[in-house]
């Protein structure tokens, strides 16, 4: 059996989000529960149908236990691998294998974080992690992570390929324009390139607009076998392939700062899907920072290495441009509750179902979802999703 044998056999049949932006007075688990309920309602299924669980969280090392207990489920399949924000894309392959093998029938992939409004937020967690999971060969130099690691990546990309801050700003502005079409997005006020360029630096070459939001948010989606998916209430979105590549942890151990693991995960996913970049109608990629979008476009083969900057010029990935990228507004302008991988999957599903209103990509049949994890594009997971008529 190979990855190719799984092509289209598993579908996403329900999606849901909750607590996006600010979820005052709520806990991680509470908004996760709301998102899980929304995703199951969307699928026409109930919690009692769930016999597989994929979940991860940055605060709790044994997070699946918390979720199992809170939801009151007894899954036959549990996947809690945490490769960073890409996890909720990377969870797909093990879930596909388990579903295809008949180990379980309905897998719930779910995440929730109230990092923005909770008393234990980003600052406290960073301090705690420095103790629990130190980076002894980087910590004395005080990189402001994750921005500084991605800033080092961006600086190198600019040096090697004449990528400019204006190119990076194009990514941020395109994300904002999509967000303005998405009622769920957190940052919707107008943004132009000059504003991005003139903003205060955080870690050169990044201003705040090059960095993802810090919001609350929960996301969940439901996977089942294609035969069962046909009988459910929503149009199934099939997973043609999923592949994950993990290359390093810290930016100082990243071999070539301009090449990410998407190069490998993308090649494997496209090969198994039997499709290439030219067959893809949209890209939903994890834009933790503006540079991530350029790297994804290059490493997944939507343009050549080093040409990401020129690819995005003149609003090419914005609404009305030639290739739609991050149509929800992305981590830069829609939502980013620490780990964002489930949200890009959900946006692709909503687009392929035709549920996206003003931001709908007309006639879209295929999407690539590309997750990013870790402080320096450390892990990446690529999925090719499609409507039934592409099978």
């Amino acid at each position, binding site marked *: 059996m190979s990855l190719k044998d799984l092509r289209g056999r598993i579908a996403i049949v329900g999606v849901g989000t909750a607590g996006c932006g600010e979820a005052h007075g709520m806990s991680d688990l509470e908004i996760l529960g709301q998102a899980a309920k929304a995703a199951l309602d969307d699928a026409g299924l109930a919690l009692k149908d769930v016999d597989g669980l994929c979940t991860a969280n940055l605060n709790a090392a044994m997070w699946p236990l918390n979720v199992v207990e809170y939801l009151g489920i007894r899954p036959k399949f549990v996947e809690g691998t945490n490769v960073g924000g890409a996890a909720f894309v990377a969870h797909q392959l093990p879930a596909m294998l388990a579903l295809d093998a008949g180990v379980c029938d309905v897998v719930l992939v779910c995440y929730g974080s109230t990092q923005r409004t909770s008393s234990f937020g980003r600052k406290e967690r960073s301090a705690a992690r420095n103790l629990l999971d130190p980076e002894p060969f980087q910590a004395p130099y005080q*990189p402001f992570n994750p921005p500084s690691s991605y800033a*080092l990546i961006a600086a190198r990309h600019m040096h090697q390929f004449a990528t400019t801050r204006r190119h990076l700003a194009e990514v941020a502005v395109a994300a904002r324009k999509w967000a303005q079409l998405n009622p769920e997005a957190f940052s919707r006020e107008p943004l132009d390139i000059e504003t991005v360029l003139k903003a205060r*630096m955080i870690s050169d070459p990044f201003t705040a607009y090059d960095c993802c939001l810090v919001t609350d948010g929960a996301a969940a989606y439901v996977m089942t076998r294609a035969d069962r998916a046909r009988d459910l209430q929503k149009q199934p979105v099939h997973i043609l392939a999923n592949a994950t590549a993990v290359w390093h942890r810290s930016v*100082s151990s990243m071999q070539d700062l301009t090449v990410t693991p998407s190069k490998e995960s993308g090649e494997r996913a496209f090969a198994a899907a039997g499709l290439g970049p030219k067959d893809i109608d949209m890209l939903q990629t994890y834009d933790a920072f503006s540079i991530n979008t350029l790297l994804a476009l290059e490493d997944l083969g939507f343009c050549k290495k080093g040409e990401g900057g020129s690819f995005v010029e003149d609003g090419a990935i914005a609404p009305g441009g030639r290739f739609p990228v991050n149509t929800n507004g992305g981590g830069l302008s829609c939502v980013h509750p620490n780990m964002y991988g489930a949200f890009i999957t959900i946006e692709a599903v909503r687009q392929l179902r035709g549920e996206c209103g003003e931001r709908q990509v007309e006639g879209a049949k295929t999407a690539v979802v590309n997750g990013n994890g870790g402080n320096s594009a450390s892990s990446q997971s690529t999925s090719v999703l499609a409507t039934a008529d592409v099978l």
Partner: protein
Amino acid sequence: MQEDAKLGPEAHYQAQLNQGRFLIQRCSDCARHVFYPRVICPHCGGAALQWVEAGGAGMVYSTTTVRRKAEAGGDYDVSLIDLDEGVRMMSRVEGIAPTEVKIGMRVRARVIDQKGAGLVVFFAEDGK
């Protein structure tokens, strides 16, 4: 040194730095240098890692200026340095303004004391 011999590579590296010596590892099996210090060579999987004195010469592979309020100490450099031995490490370039640190700049290592521990930092090779 007797005590150090019992330490793991990470602790030995730091103990040597604390005495002002910058050591890196070299794999006797594949002849490649290794940083950060390990018990297994990440290139070939061998365990024959030997300590060697780092030459100290290198080049800035990438650099960022971390912006910090003046009252907290002001802006500072974070760079990735490629040592001539072929290994990369995070460090900072001192002696010039952080925004003056450029990719491709030749730099030389110096072991300094930071909060009571030895730490490798770099200075621009032209002596600035």
